[in-house]
């Protein structure tokens, strides 16, 4: 899967889980500081990505991902 496709899908998941319009989501955005995620939602984002990309990730590694750009990198490396 190429980077553009990963980015598109990451933004789709972030939009669904955090209820933010996809058009407003940028790679530099941090989930909590910029997109209003509550800390308890971190694992829901991870589960959303798992569902979208149909793979299981290490929970502790995935929870270290703090921004949209980090999430894109994380899945580009794994897909």
């Amino acid at each position, binding site marked *: 899967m190429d980077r553009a496709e990963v980015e598109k899908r990451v933004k789709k998941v972030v939009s*669904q*889980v955090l209820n933010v319009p996809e058009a407003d989501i940028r790679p530099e955005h941090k989930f909590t500081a910029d997109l209003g995620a509550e*800390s*308890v939602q*971190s*694992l*829901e984002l991870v589960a959303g990505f798992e*569902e979208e990309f149909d793979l299981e990730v290490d929970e502790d590694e995935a929870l270290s991902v703090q921004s949209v750009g980090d999430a894109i990198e994380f899945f580009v490396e794994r897909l």
Partner: protein
Amino acid sequence: MSLIEQFIQRAKQAPKRVVLPEGDDERMIQAAVRLVAEGIAKPIVLGAEEEVRALAGGASLAGVTIVDPAKDSRIGAYSAAYAKNRGVAEGLAGRMVKRPLYFGGMMVAEGDADAMVAGVAKATAQVISAAALTVGFSEGVSQASSYFVMVLPDGKVLVFADCAVVVDPNARELAEIAVTTARNAKKLLDVEPRVAMLSFSTKGSAQHAHVDKVREATAIAKEMAPEILLDGEFQVDSAIVERVAKKKCPDSTVGGTANVLVFPDLDSGNMGYKLTQYLGNAKAIGPIMQGFAKPVNDLSRGASVDDIIAVTAIASLQCGG
């Protein structure tokens, strides 16, 4: 009999179904075996049956319910309930509830267990997240907090909050901590709570925004739970020393005789409990997590089997009834 032994004896009077999601940890299995043998609780251990049996090392698991989330028929219903409660897609919900902490939380939320005890392998923040997203918070409560039971050398028991979780509560959050702590003190200690909202001021003796916060919290807490005996703002001596209270706040019904001390922030709460523990030679039991609609209690990663049993007894008493 120590206070912990008293909790255990009281828990035995009505053993609760307590889910222990970390079935891949030997201490949890050993605790489950003892909880059954001593009649303290009805443990539900989450994990693959063969793995749980291997960890038991030949000990009888009769009376221990083993549930494997990957094979359990309730996972569909839990996914649907999670998706509905959280407003997320069912696929995402399914990925959440197959995780043991979340499956355990859904068991509690859906009434298939009375309480959950976890944290030997997971961080406190992960236990709090799981509880918040599955069990949810009590009515009128917006976040998790915690309390300590402090046993003084003379046997006197005081409850301190919040000394471990909420860093800088606003007035509303402080009121929630006070009310939640009072209710749990009543369930756990079987005493009438007398709640003091602490400050560096007693009944207007000092003026500052920090004092205003405690005053506002006192008013909100009284409105939230008028049945609770609660007053403020107090300096510590006005709250617990009758002689001082007679001078500084003679008209207060709580002053001088408080048994629940609510600190204005985590700086003061954390220092307060440690000073009492180390300079006052008090025994500190906790932090005990609270604020959820049903009990979910956190363990330290270094918890012993005895610690797990004590926390399970506390969780059982927090169920009430």
